[in-house]
């Protein structure tokens, strides 16, 4: 095993313990950035290394890019967070003790995500996603307001039940695999399970997948299990909203896709595609309609995340090389664009002092760099060219019309309805007479870095990257 993978995992874990002990929040916020930079650098080194899978960790074409993406968004969010908490301390909403807790939890959260992505063992994957739930529940309740505690409670209850059901599914997978592979760790190891998938009893596998889909699907935010998501996004600190949308949802979906691969490799088990398609389409349509009634800006973009996770789940449900390619690309693009939007929203909310959409007007006039950045982010997420989201949505729509024209109509309808809501809201947010004139804290670099990547991906995807996406799309079946 290459040293890069242990560094990716150990750096955030050690820093989580260390940051709990640093009393100076300003120092802690920069240490947080430093730790994320180390993790990101190590994650890039993973692309060149091809380590063999161990009993606990695995690195393959599918997860290596997601690890790098997670480390990258972690780094930019840490930079954004340094400026964000500066404002929160200045306005007296957060005290140093809570910030110590916040920084420790931020690193612990990144650790659990990276562990979930690199786990080769179903049990480790489950423990990691459970840990991610725990750390985010604690961070959502950071402000200790009535609304934030209610949001954290709802999150804990719904996702607690979700991961409980996922554990039941995991136990069922072991039960199915154990007669074939014998008792012990082998029957819970990805690589071994995948190699022997065809010999596993398909009936138990079907039952297990239903539990796993509902369990981890709760964390993806697929309808009708999405109720926790808007509250958790709206009431927690904005850097947490950015990593929830940008990272956690992707990691939960990654878990579902791994199990989908297992079912596909079995052959005799039920086809997981239609289940994902139904959940994806209903999330898309529901969230697209709900967008029109939102008055809170963070809630608004949280519903947009549900919509996009629906699109991605639908893409993997359709399956086949082209739709899988579109799904993977959309996963990466949504992660970058949505966290960029949350960075912009965080600054805008701090400048205007309210989360109500009515209270934020004319950002391009009062804060030109921020306003145009937010506008670009919304244009990207709405699926307009030249950004990368346009490309992935275009690929998905063409491949859907080629194979399931009726579902294609519904897909386009959902995307169009959501597009209308985004255009309606962003006009008021970005143009007109400005409401808030307070200066913004921190740098806009993370926002523009994300937008630049999304823009470049929309205009030109490098050939090796395309080859890589195609290889993973083939892997997903």
């Amino acid at each position, binding site marked *: 095993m290459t040293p890069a993978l242990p560094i990716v995992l150990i750096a955030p874990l050690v820093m989580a313990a260390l940051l709990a002990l640093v009393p100076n929040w300003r120092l802690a916020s920069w240490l947080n950035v430093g730790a994320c930079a180390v993790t990101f650098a190590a994650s890039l080194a993973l692309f060149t290394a091809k380590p063999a899978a161990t009993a606990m960790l695995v690195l393959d074409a599918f997860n290596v890019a997601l690890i790098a993406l997670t480390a990258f968004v972690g780094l930019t969010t840490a930079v954004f967070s340094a400026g964000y908490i500066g404002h929160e301390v200045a306005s007296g909403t957060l005290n140093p003790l809570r910030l110590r807790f916040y920084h420790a939890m931020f690193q612990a959260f990144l650790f659990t995500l990276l562990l979930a992505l690199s786990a080769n063992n179903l049990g480790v994957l489950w*423990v990691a996603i459970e840990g991610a739930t725990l750390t985010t529940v604690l961070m959502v309740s950071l402000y200790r307001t009535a609304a934030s505690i209610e949001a954290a409670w709802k999150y804990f209850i719904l996702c607690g039940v979700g991961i409980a059901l996922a554990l039941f599914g995991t136990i069922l997978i072991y039960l199915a695999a154990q007669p074939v592979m014998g008792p012990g760790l082998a029957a819970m190891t990805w690589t071994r399970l995948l190699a022997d998938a065809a010999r596993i009893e398909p009936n138990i596998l079907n039952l297990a997948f239903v539990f796993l889909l509902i369990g981890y699907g709760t964390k993806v935010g697929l309808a009708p299990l999405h109720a926790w998501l808007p509250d958790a996004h709206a009431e927690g600190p904005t850097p947490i909203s950015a990593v929830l949308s940008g990272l956690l949802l992707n990691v939960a979906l990654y878990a579902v896709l791994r199990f989908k691969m297992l079912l596909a490799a079995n052959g005799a088990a039920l086809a997981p595609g239609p289940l994902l398609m139904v959940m994806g389409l209903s999330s898309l349509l529901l969230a697209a309609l709900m967008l029109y009634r939102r008055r*809170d800006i963070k809630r608004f973009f949280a519903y947009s995340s549900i919509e996009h996770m629906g699109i991605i789940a639908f893409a993997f449900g359709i399956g086949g090389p082209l739709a899988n390619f579109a799904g993977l690309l959309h996963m990466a693009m949504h992660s970058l664009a949505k966290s960029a939007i949350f960075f912009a929203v965080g600054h805008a909310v701090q400048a205007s002092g309210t989360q109500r959409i009515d209270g934020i007007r004319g950002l391009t006039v009062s804060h030109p760099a921020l306003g145009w950045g937010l506008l670009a982010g919304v244009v990207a997420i709405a699926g307009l060219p030249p950004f990368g989201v346009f490309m992935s949505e275009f690929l998905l729509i063409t491949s859907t019309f080629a194979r399931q024209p009726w579902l294609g109509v519904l897909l386009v309808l959902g995307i169009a309805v959501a597009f209308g809501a985004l255009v309606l809201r962003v006009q008021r947010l970005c143009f007109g007479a400005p409401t808030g004139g307070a200066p913004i804290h921190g740098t806009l670099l993370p926002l523009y870095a994300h937008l630049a990547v999304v823009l470049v991906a929309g205009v030109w995807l490098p050939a090796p990257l395309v080859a890589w996406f195609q290889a993973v799309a083939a892997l997903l079946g």
Partner: protein
Amino acid sequence: MIDIGYDAAHLLGALVLMTSFALLYQRRLFSLLNVFTVQALALSGAAAWQAYAHDEPHLYITALLTLTLKAIAIPVALHRIIQRLHIERTVEPALGIGLTMVAGVSLVTLSILLVLPVTENATALTREDLALSLSVVLLGLLMMISRRNAVSQVVGFMSIENGLILAAVGVAGMPLVVEMSIAFSVMVAFIIFGIFLFQIRERFETLDMRKIESFRGESD
């Protein structure tokens, strides 16, 4: 022929399920906690028996964890919290008791119909353990839905967890059971004691989730 290993495991599993039903109709918080303690004891016994009968010593750790944490530490702490915070000692369930019991029985039927046909190749003990534990999980879910009080929701969540541990213990040779039960316990402990009961109390002067839920982010 009498197979004592099978009978004992079956008895303990059934006891866990019985207590799940008993949890459903408790109106007083203290008796709810007492019934939960019995359930944790039965689960701990089931884990210890499995460790002995199948010679899997790591399950003794699971049994010990269940015993100390769920049968002793958590009920005692919840007792104290209820007393110190002067929480209302009786809870009105959102659903009537008769209706809840009917729903409970149908959930058990459902889980038996779901599990037994698909696990024909597994041993009888594993199949029945799995059916029992799925019933416990579903009854825990029902309890979380039918009670709107934070303490009973936490007890409901922990009984779901008990059902999962029963399942994990019942499947022969399952690795990482200990680690998973630790991870679950840490989560519950953090949530209960670190954050919610104190914070909710501090903010709302109540532990009734119905009142808390009126603080909607978009009520204005």
